[in-house]
């Protein structure tokens, strides 16, 4: 195994977070371990791509705006649009702007767990039709 990182995500905490979703029941021991690995890959990917934006702007600090731009550009990160919705857009030279309300993309998106029951049923219904 190519373990590059010294730090690890806490597996027990991941399981607890998973189980905040009322639909999630029992979870095999391996499951949060695998999610931990996927999370590593995800975070590295997000950081790598956001830093590209940082470099493009000749900045030394990874800012919220860089992260937002990355999330809006990369399809894999569509599900994060709500996370950065409040961030003001960076000043684009070509005058792009405004938050795009694309909550219905082809990939299933998950609304926050606080509005879980009705929203998740709605998403599940959508998925049945796909």
């Amino acid at each position, binding site marked *: 195994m*190519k373990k590059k*990182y*010294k*730090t*690890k*995500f*806490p597996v027990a*905490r*991941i399981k*607890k*977070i*998973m189980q*905040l*979703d009322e*639909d*999630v*029941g*029992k*979870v*095999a*021991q*391996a499951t949060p*371990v*695998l*999610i931990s*690995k*996927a*999370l*590593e*890959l*995800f*975070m*590295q990917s*997000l*950081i790598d791509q956001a*830093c590209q934006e*940082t470099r493009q702007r000749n900045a*030394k*600090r*990874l*800012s*919220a705006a*860089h*992260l937002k731009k990355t*999330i809006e550009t990369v*399809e*894999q*990160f569509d*599900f*994060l649009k709500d*996370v*950065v919705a409040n*961030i003001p857009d960076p000043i684009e030279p070509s005058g792009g702007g405004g938050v795009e309300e694309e909550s219905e993309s082809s*990939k*299933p998106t*998950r609304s926050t*767990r*606080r509005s879980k029951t009705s929203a998740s049923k709605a998403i*599940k219904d959508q*998925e049945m039709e796909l």
Partner: protein
Amino acid sequence: MSDNERSGAADDDLSLPKATVQKLINEMMPNEIACAKDTRDLLIDSCVEFIHLIASEANDICERENKKTIAGEHVVAALQALGFDDYVEEVDEVYKEHKKQQKERDRKSTRLENTGIAEEELLRQQELLFAQSRQKFEAQQQ
């Protein structure tokens, strides 16, 4: 677990520990770029969203298979379904390693069963040892 760790934290505020994520961010960032504090918090939120995303999809896949427990296979399938195919190879490696380690753990815990001696015989041997030490004790009393 001490009460101190739980006081004030409602279930809904459950997130990943800041210090741990900060350490990981430091390991993952390029040397010449720093991470702003509010960006770190956004990264934490992003991670939590990712967990929910995968968990939810894995749960759906699990239910479709009429299983009750979300297994590793469901996680891998979820990654593929959600467009994270590039993660599958490494996650699979972790899964294989985990299964191997679990086999080792199971093997170790059944070592006593593997002595090849039947339970009756073990009980007889135990009684014999007790009788012997009783005799020694009584001998000492005289």
